[in-house]
């Protein structure tokens, strides 16, 4: 059981000539293995800043980040070991894979760098990981441009799982994918989460999938967590006006056709 605690974290970005931007204001939450938390909010609310701080691509201005009760390291080999534990899947599978390298190279690199398995088992492990994300292992010799968006995102997930992390941060993992395959990739993430007992932070602006795939939802607005709770409570009975406005802005044919909806797009009679 791994626990990652984000405790009273504040992040300020310096903007040249314009002082500071408060990107995160006293944000706290706990990510534990086996649970999925969705982080929702509109563009610029600070969602990706949280992901960057969790992976230490950015440093918090103040506050503590504790892995199993210990301060997470900021540099050196200790940071590398930390990053084996906490992995990230990025939004754009077209930009997160190197077009010059084969799929094998992408999946194999973390295995070799982190010495996850002995050298003579690397090939077998690459095949196992690709199968794990429901891809044909023969795909290993291909390059990213030969794959569809959904296949690429599966490769990115296989790469993230290579170092056997206990926590996974998925930053808008399906927003660049076609609707017809989004559900497939999200279902895969949900299956992998159960199989590997992963803790998942699912960052999204899509409330419907947030509710569908998460135990808990956290709503971020201007760097402040304005509401959090079990997914159903947050979506079905939002307490904060911002959560309500987010929910009411999301397309929802159910409410629309029942005629009791919020001021949905006016329809001509």
């Amino acid at each position, binding site marked *: 059981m791994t626990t990652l605690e984000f405790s009273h974290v504040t992040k300020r970005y310096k903007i040249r000539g314009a002082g500071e931007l408060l990107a995160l204001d006293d944000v706290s939450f706990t990510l534990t293995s086996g649970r999925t938390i969705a982080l929702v909010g509109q563009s610029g609310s600070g969602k990706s800043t949280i992901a960057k701080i969790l992976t230490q691509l950015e440093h918090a201005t103040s506050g503590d980040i504790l892995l199993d009760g210990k301060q997470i390291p900021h540099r050196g080999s200790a940071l590398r070991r930390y990053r084996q534990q906490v992995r990230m899947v990025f939004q754009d599978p077209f930009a997160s894979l190197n077009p010059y390298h084969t799929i094998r190279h992408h999946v194999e690199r973390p295995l070799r760098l982190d010495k996850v398995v002995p050298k003579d088992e690397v090939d077998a492990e690459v095949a196992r990981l690709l199968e794990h994300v429901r891809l044909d292992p023969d795909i290993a010799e291909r390059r990213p441009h030969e794959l569809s968006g959904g296949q690429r995102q599966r490769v990115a997930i296989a790469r993230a799982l290579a170092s056997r992390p206990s926590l996974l941060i998925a930053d808008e993992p399906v927003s660049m994918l076609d609707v*017809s395959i989004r559900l497939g990739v999200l279902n895969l993430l949900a299956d992998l989460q159960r199989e590997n007992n992963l803790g998942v932070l699912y960052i999204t602006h899509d409330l419907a999938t947030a509710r569908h795939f998460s135990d808990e939802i956290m709503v971020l607005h201007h760097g402040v967590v304005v509401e959090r709770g079990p997914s159903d409570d947050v979506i079905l009975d939002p307490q904060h006006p911002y959560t309500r406005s987010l929910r009411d802005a999301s397309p*929802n044919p*159910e409410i629309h056709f029942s005629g009791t909806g919020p001021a949905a797009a006016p329809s001509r009679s």
Partner: protein
Amino acid sequence: MNTDPLLTVSNFSVVYDVDPPVEAVSDVSFTLNRGEILGLAGESGCGKTSLAYGVQRLLKPPAVIPQGSAIFHDESGTDVDMNALSEEEMRRFRWDKASMVFQGAMSSLNPVTKIGKQLADVFTTHRPGMSRAERTRECGDLLDLVGVGRDRLKSYPHELSGGMRQRVMIAMALALKPQLMIMDEPTTALDVLVQREILQQISELRTQFGFSVVFITHDLPLLLEISDRIAIMLQGEIVELDTAANIYHHAQHEYTRKLLGSFPSLTGERGGFVYGRSDDTVAAGAVTGGATS
């Protein structure tokens, strides 16, 4: 609802003449009514953008249109066969009668030219008699209309947010008060709050000016809310075309149900999908079960 037709598309095909040839749109027919919002949905590669571009004659070789016609029924009462127009006639027709909001509007604006200048280009081209002062006033009015505000005439695209740039694109498409606007994924890159504002604006503008909209997106829940009728495309064909309510409650085609079943429901039963709360719950259960497994 008004059933006065604005655009009649018959037996329309688009083929990409490569080896082997790809039939992106095959034998599509539909009618768009005046003042109607018609949603066009389908997954990537189903031919929805090819159809829209084909109707506007915006496709370049190797794309060819081997058959079909698109007849535009002008307000004046004359019918225009868009395929029979000469290059020059088509150039004048486009934007004046039928305009387009392109996919990825964020990158459709010229980054090194002020948006006022880009809007004014429409008038210099299509209304050559207009004075500079009139142009500036018109452009200002357009920016006011879409909620960006005329004080942004001298802004560069990068100084505006994504939503504002999208509004500028809509202003540009509205400039000549066209009767038809084709919108290709106009809100896909925007977050839900901005998306809602823009959709509301499109709806209001439509009521105000009475134009028709072909709204292309793969976001079916969104289409169900804003469209009068929805066409579902699959592999170049329209497999189902019906009112939004009928598509939602009584989807006929298996593919339509599958598409609806790929959107988790926002406020429905936990674990449920958009398709599922209709009269035939038995069929819905089967589809939902299939999608989750």
